[in-house]
């Protein structure tokens, strides 16, 4: 198998599909047939790039310029948009709330999920199989079905309009995916080190903590990042469970700002500064960990 793959790789390098020699008959037709498709893809890429460039550039323009010269570069850099969004638009406190909730929820989720995923991923028996299925079940349950009983529970526990309450909810809703992701990660780790530790008399808790967790570092990082992205952008639960502006997370501050602007006349520069505050950290995270994020999402999906 492995030799076959290597062999065919060498071959495929020799006759790369792009080199015209491979298919003399279709040489002329194929590139032309692909042209509209390639153009469509590049158009799509351009639109995505334009979106984010537009948002960032508009955040530095005056409202008049955003509206009347949307495609132009900023004539003067209005950093005051950012400070007005931060102070008057409520994005400052919302940013702090979001950061707090995201860090706590991501850490809490991974802290709870990794030991569970470890025992589920490395024990192959009917009990762990059943419990794994039980967690996977949660992936298919839409949030709207759990949210109303949760509202009642949280109201009784006085955790409505409370960031700690929201953190707990975020941990809960992210558990199924995280357990699932880490389970396949732990299952893929080699067992030799674990066995060696057992023979050396290292306790099972220590084995997990000192050996398996460091080995799974890549998976843990991926899980942390994915939960963080999900929480940073989460709107539905936040909207259900937060009520006062002081507690709003960024998506709520943005919704709030957008609807307020309709009353007071829109300042598009400030609006896009607010959008940028919500978007930039995710862009930075993606620029830093892009491959890991996409791979984590497809790994979680691809089974």
């Amino acid at each position, binding site marked *: 198998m492995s030799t076959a793959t290597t062999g065919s790789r060498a071959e495929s390098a020799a006759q790369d599909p792009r080199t015209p020699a491979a298919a003399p008959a279709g040489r002329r037709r194929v590139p032309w047939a692909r042209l509209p498709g390639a153009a469509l893809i590049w158009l799509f890429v351009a639109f995505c790039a334009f979106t984010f460039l537009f948002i960032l550039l508009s955040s530095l323009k005056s409202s008049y310029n955003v509206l009347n010269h949307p495609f132009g570069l900023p004539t003067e850099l209005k950093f005051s948009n950012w400070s007005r969004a931060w102070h008057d638009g409520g994005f400052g406190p919302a940013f702090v709330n979001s950061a707090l909730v995201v860090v706590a929820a991501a850490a809490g989720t991974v802290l709870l*999920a990794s030991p569970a995923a470890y025992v589920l991923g*490395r024990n192959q028996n009917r009990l762990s199989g059943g419990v794994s299925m039980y967690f996977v079940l949660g992936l298919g*349950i*839409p949030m709207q079905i759990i949210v109303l009983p949760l509202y009642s529970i949280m109201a009784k526990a006085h955790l409505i309009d409370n960031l700690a309450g929201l953190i707990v909810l975020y941990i809960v809703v992210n558990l199924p995916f995280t357990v699932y992701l880490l389970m396949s990660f732990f299952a893929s780790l080699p067992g030799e080190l674990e066995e060696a530790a057992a023979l050396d008399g290292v306790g099972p808790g220590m084995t*997990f903590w000192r050996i398996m967790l460091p080995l799974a570092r890549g998976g843990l990082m991926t899980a942390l990042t994915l939960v963080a992205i999900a929480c940073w952008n989460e709107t*539905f639960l936040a909207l259900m469970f937060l009520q006062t502006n002081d507690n709003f997370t960024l998506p709520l501050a*943005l919704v709030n700002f957008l*609807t307020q602007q309709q009353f007071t006349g829109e300042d598009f520069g400030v609006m896009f500064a607010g959008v940028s505050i919500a978007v930039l950290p995710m862009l930075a995270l993606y620029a830093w960990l892009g491959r890991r994020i996409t791979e984590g999402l497809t790994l979680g999906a691809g089974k």
Partner: protein
Amino acid sequence: MTSATVGVRRGRAKGSPLARRRRRVFGPFLAPALILYTVLFMVPTGYSFYASFTSWDGFSNPRWKGTLNYDHLTHDPAFKDAFFNTLKLLFGCGIFLFVLSFAFMLMLREMKGRRFIQGFIFLPHIVSGVALAAFWDFLLNHDGMLNKGLHSFGLGPVDWLKPQWQFNAILLAIVWINTGYYVTILMAGVDRIPPYYYEEAKLAGTNSWQRFRHITLPMSWDVVGTAAVLWTIGTVKIFEFILAFSGSQGNLPTTNQWTSAMYVYGETIGGTSPIYDFGRACAGAVVTLVAVVVVVVVLRRVTSRDRLEL
């Protein structure tokens, strides 16, 4: 790896030290996650089924009222809108999205700068739907960017957001947001197909359509199936883009743009004058869940038909 697994399995029956250790931590390691998940996820799911047969405001105790909530749903225009819009997203948007993603994936495989392109088209998937809605609204508004662009070509403003078009604008945006994600998933699946299949097919004198038809499609069929299941589960979550795009002045969007999640929000604490009809909202959520389960089961049946093992 394989021998280790076998060793562990055989050892477990005898009670090897490793297996015994693992069993000792099985409970304690699992318990926190399992308990939290059960209490705050699975119990609420079950409770929603019960509450859907009651009259409940979310604060006092539910009162039993049989299937009245479900009867009501069948002629509640808001729920019909929400349900059909969710189906529109699921199938209308879904078919378009999958054809586009599959075509992109096939073309990208042979394009230069594939990583770069993939990186860019994935971007909308990781930012907040609210932020994208703000941009999308600015793009399509009467005074918005698209009309400004048209104006410079001497074309009159088009009312892109007139009521009968607005939901289509949402559908288009959802396709845009999700294409990169599904291209990436499909790509990961197709990349697993061993290249020597293509080599042999090429030697046998097949053309690229035949190779697509007889290798790529059957061998990525299970990934397409998984992606379709993910999409099904994902559509019922679509909420914030629509809220931010179509909601106005603290009010919810009009019901002809509601989706399932919007229905639950709108029938309970959403809007300027909340309705607090938790029982009916639960019934709506149960119907949605049942629809999702049915679609997932059908999809699994259809796509597992000629699944191939590599």
